[in-house]
């Protein structure tokens, strides 16, 4: 008996070896095709064709000839994706529905000859013009194009491409993928010694961040001639520092948008004076307590100048003066140890005086997390180390996020007090807050970019309810005016549902909350496969709408104005605990 078993193993080994052997001997496949310009069928020569084998790190690379043709006569059988790139065109993939979308997999079998591959490339667009500074050419300034990004329904900007102007103020932003963009000009107070250009695919914005943080001087002197009474800040096309007044620029394939001139001269700056009330008395023998007062812009623009996020320290008597602030709406934050305070200010055409900010010790909010196990099997999920957070709503840049760690018995306290901390941690001050449960209930990821994956043991968890007494804190804000007397009760569900449906192959399917959580958490997305099927797993029970778009900009569903125009296309879906819902009708 024992002998027989060994024989069997040996036999299997032989079969496996034989199998491997025949794989190595498989005749190669051969591939050829043509790269053409979309719409014109003009061949694209000197395009780089990259054949990526699924699961392999190295790739086969060739170039197109003058007829746009490429040849790969010796290819190991397998699954491949073909990517084509060319100066002046948008990177393309074999089988993609539109520029920027995912391509399809090409399966090559032993000895197979595929000679009819056709890949279309879309021409990139150009935006060019002049940047002026009070009418004078602004050399070595930046023109930047942004993709609009909606986070929690608010517009913000994701830089896509940047380039410098020359001494005549002329700039060129070129080979832009078709799309809708915002354009801004930035005149730096001191010219930079560093220069970068971003990736038109938006994957690398090191240039822009570099320029925002490091401004080496061009001048031999250290003066730089920076004005004390004015400041250059980003100016959006056609000519306002307020992004709400920016014009969307629709770049069509091969578009040449010339004469996109921007006057980006400086804004006059103002002073902000006031008093911080409640500054703690200094310890005898120690220097007086100085409270840092900082201002954060609520304009939704990006920061290139210290006058957009200025700060100052208080004098011993609690007064402060911030000497250089560009006009706009700000939140003014002050903090000292566990004391903090804030107020919203708006600066227009004159200095602000008599601003008063009170320092408060903050409240303590505590509560408990309960796991509901109805209908669920398997081991008790580990909720310890979930983090319950309170975040200002609407989001105030630069404000503190208060949080507490969930203990193994489910209890939590905000603010969390570190065991050996020298000073107590600041607690939440009066205001409106969202209750978050990290990492399972978080605000949407900015830029509609990829949502970080949850650890496997947390993937089926969701926040079912958050209550303080009778108040629903999952769909509404915590309105803090005084020390709360009741605890926060958070119920974690463990029995999510799922949704299946059909759409045009390659479409982006999105499952959107049909309640107050819309725009406030990440929506679930899925790509319809080659047969048009899509699926959403681990869907918390509730009411949703499902949408599918063949062509959609990443994260566009976070834009309320876009969604208003699309609302009727959505298919309502109700998900019950542990149930799988099926959408009968094809979505698009």
């Amino acid at each position, binding site marked *: 008996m024992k002998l027989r078993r060994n024989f069997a193993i040996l036999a299997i080994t032989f079969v496996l070896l034989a199998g491997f052997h025949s794989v190595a001997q498989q005749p190669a496949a051969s591939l050829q095709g043509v790269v053409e310009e979309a719409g014109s069928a003009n061949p694209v020569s000197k395009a*780089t064709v990259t054949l990526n084998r699924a699961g392999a790190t190295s790739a086969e690379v060739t170039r197109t000839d003058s007829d746009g043709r490429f040849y790969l006569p010796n290819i190991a059988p397998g699954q491949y994706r073909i990517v084509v790139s060319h100066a002046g065109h948008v*990177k393309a993939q074999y089988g993609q529905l539109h520029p920027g979308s995912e391509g399809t997999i090409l399966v090559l079998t032993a000895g197979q000859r595929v000679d009819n591959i056709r890949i279309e490339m879309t021409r990139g667009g150009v935006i060019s013009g002049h940047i002026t500074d009070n009418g004078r050419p602004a050399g070595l300034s930046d023109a930047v194009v942004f993709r609009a990004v909606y986070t929690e329904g608010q517009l913000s900007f994701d830089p896509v491409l940047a380039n410098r102007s*020359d*001494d005549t103020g002329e700039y060129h932003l070129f*080979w832009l993928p078709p799309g809708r963009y915002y354009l801004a000009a930035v005149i730096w107070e001191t010219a930079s010694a560093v220069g970068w250009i971003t990736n038109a*695919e938006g994957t690398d914005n090191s240039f822009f961040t570099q320029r925002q943080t490091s401004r080496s001087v061009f*001048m031999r002197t250290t*003066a*730089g001639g920076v004005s004390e009474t004015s400041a250059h800040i980003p100016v959006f096309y056609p000519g306002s520092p307020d992004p709400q007044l920016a014009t969307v620029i629709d770049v069509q394939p091969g578009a040449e948008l010339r004469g996109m001139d921007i006057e980006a001269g400086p804004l006059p700056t103002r002073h902000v004076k006031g008093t911080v009330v409640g500054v703690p008395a200094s310890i005898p023998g120690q220097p007086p307590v100085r409270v840092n007062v900082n201002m954060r812009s609520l304009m939704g623009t990006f920061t290139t100048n210290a006058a957009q996020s200025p700060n100052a320290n208080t004098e011993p008597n609690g007064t402060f003066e911030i000497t250089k602030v560009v006009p706009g709406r700000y939140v003014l934050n002050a903090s000292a140890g566990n004391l903090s305070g804030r107020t919203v200010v708006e600066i227009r055409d004159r200095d602000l005086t008599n601003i008063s900010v009170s320092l408060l010790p903050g409240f303590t909010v505590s509560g408990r997390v309960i796991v509901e196990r109805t209908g669920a099997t398997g081991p008790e999920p580990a909720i310890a180390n979930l983090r319950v957070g309170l975040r200002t709503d609407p989001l105030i840049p630069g404000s503190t996020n208060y949080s507490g760690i969930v203990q193994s018995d489910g209890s939590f306290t905000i603010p969390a007090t570190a065991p050996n901390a020298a000073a107590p941690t600041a607690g939440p001050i009066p205001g409106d807050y969202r209750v978050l449960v990290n990492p399972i209930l978080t605000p949407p990821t900015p830029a509609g970019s990829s949502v970080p994956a949850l650890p496997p043991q947390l993937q089926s968890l969701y926040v079912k309810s958050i209550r303080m007494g009778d108040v629903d804190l999952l769909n509404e804000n915590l309105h803090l005016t005084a020390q709360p007397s009741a605890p926060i009760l958070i119920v974690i569900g463990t029995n999510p549902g799922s949704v299946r449906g059909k759409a045009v192959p390659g479409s982006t399917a999105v499952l959107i909350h049909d309640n107050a959580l819309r725009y406030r958490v990440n929506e679930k997305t899925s790509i319809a496969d080659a047969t048009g099927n899509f699926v959403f797993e681990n869907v918390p029970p509730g009411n949703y709408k499902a949408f599918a778009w063949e062509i959609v900009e990443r994260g566009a569903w976070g834009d309320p104005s876009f969604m208003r125009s699309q609302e009727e296309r959505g298919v309502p879906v109700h998900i019950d605990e542990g149930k799988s819902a099926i959408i009968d009708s094809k979505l698009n």
Partner: protein
Amino acid sequence: MTFGKTACLLVLVGLAQAQSVAQNPGTASIEGVVVKIGTNEPIADADLELSRIEGTAQAPLNPGAAELFSTILFGNNPPSLGGAAPPAQIAPEIQYAKTGPDGRFSFANLKEGRYRLAAILVGGNYFPAEYGQHDVRQRGLPFPVSSGQAVKNLKLEMATTGAITGQIVDEDGQPMGHTTVMALSEQYQKGEPRWYIERVLLTDERGAYRLFWLGPGKYKVAAVYENPEQRSVNMGPAGPPGRGAARYRATNPVLMRQVMPNGAVIEEAYGVVYFGGVIDPLLARSIDVRPGETYNGIDISLGAGKARTHHLRGTVISAATGQPAPGAQVMAIPQRWSPNALILTGTTNTDGAFDLAGAFPERYVLSASVAVPPINALQPGTTAQLQQQYGGSSQVGYLPIEVAGADIENIRIVANGGVNIPGRVVIEGLAPSDTDADLSRMGIGVVRDPDLIAMPGGMMPLPSVPSGTPARPINGQVLGNGDFYLFMSQGDFRLNVGGVPSNMYVKSVRIGGDDIQRSGLHITGAVQNPIQIIIGTDGGTISGSVISSTSAPMPNSVVALVPEAFDLRTRSDLYRSATADALGNFKLNAVVPGSYKLFAWEWAEPDAWQNPEFIRPIENSGKSVTITASGKQENIQLSPIMLTKSGQ
């Protein structure tokens, strides 16, 4: 066009007059005007920066200011000030002013001391100017201001900047967008002219470029193909001209691979192409940019640099184990110097093998760096023991190689650990001591010869020592008794001695009977004899003044001492140079006894006089001087040699 000279003289005359103006004792003042060069056209809104770089006994500098000034103003690698306020040590010593519509400026309430005055205009349409320049690229001249003095009518002349424009095309004449274009300016390194990067930018979608805000001077223009998929390009240096360390880039050639219908593979890449259609920077055409001028049509076809490329394949062997070294960093660095070196890089696989693609038919140096393997079950012993066994924490190997028309296979690079070389520095005529202050300020450095961009340095990281063992001195540090130790890689080097007091000179450097000063340091394995360095104290001095043809003093002129014998002119340690002070006086110290020629110019690129091509046409204008041991030559009068200057 009057440029430089006249302006400077005017300024100095102004200063001389001003010095006679009496004022109440106490604070001094300075006033003057900024104009466009060669004109009386005032420049409004110019920023002036006045730095007190030397104090007096009565009015000393702020603590730490002197050191920081010397780093910022004269250091090889000045710190980037980031556009922020100057550091606290020097802030109290710097004052600012702005010119009015009439171009005039003034400073009041000045302490006595030596000052440096610079003018800039935000934006770059004017090249920054300093007081006392003969040439816009030259450093200015610090000038003394005494207590109560009222300095009037200082004049600074600012040159407008120029521009170079053109188009980059490929071999078919098609415009090449997103291609790097560089403006290169000439600098001398040990007498060899080298063209360093002054500005870098990318062409636009039409292949067009505009290099702007160029100071007057000669430029070459180079184009480098960039990967169009990689739109984030580090543009590298673009700082103020003549102020930084060597400015160059190292990038990887962009490989263009084409598989033919029959399966054959052609690999090509673009080399760096210079204006004039050449790939050798020395043969490139230069453009003499004059103030305010724009030079159009400086077009380059990258076709001239397109070539079939080859593979370099082989194995890196660790000398410590005799086994192939996985994970070794391998580079192929072209031996022909270029401000934009196209370097091939790669890493060895688990078999210690590498395959570098993109080699042009030219000479390369292959270098391999191997880290000592991390401690694991197969490598018993502590870090210190392992590093002793491997000869340090890393091993370096290098191999010169010439690529002809084919791939090179089976290359074997042996990576060795560091070599320990003891040495001793002796100051001539000095009794041995263990705590000599002069000796303990010295340090020994080594530079690879040739010194190629991106080559691993000569000094190797010191191995950790087993616990309980005393740590050895820092690599190259000279102790108070003159002893030093080098722990360095194998290869060819030049050795230099730093921190030699200004009245002494390096007399000889020997290993056994070999004269290292003459032949260089060649390490091929263990070194038996120690390095012996003798510091001479019998150097002579030469002093005098630079005067114009009308016997006027020529402040801020450059004086250089060149060995008389042609065979000694490769010895850069024999040259001496100085800048004349405000009265045109100069002094050269620690001159090695021998015969020399002495030259003076209003301005010359630093170390230009070490280049035979520079000296040849003016050989006969040099004044012959012979210096004996501890000898002195005084009151030598020199007249500046006129050079053809940019913008004249």
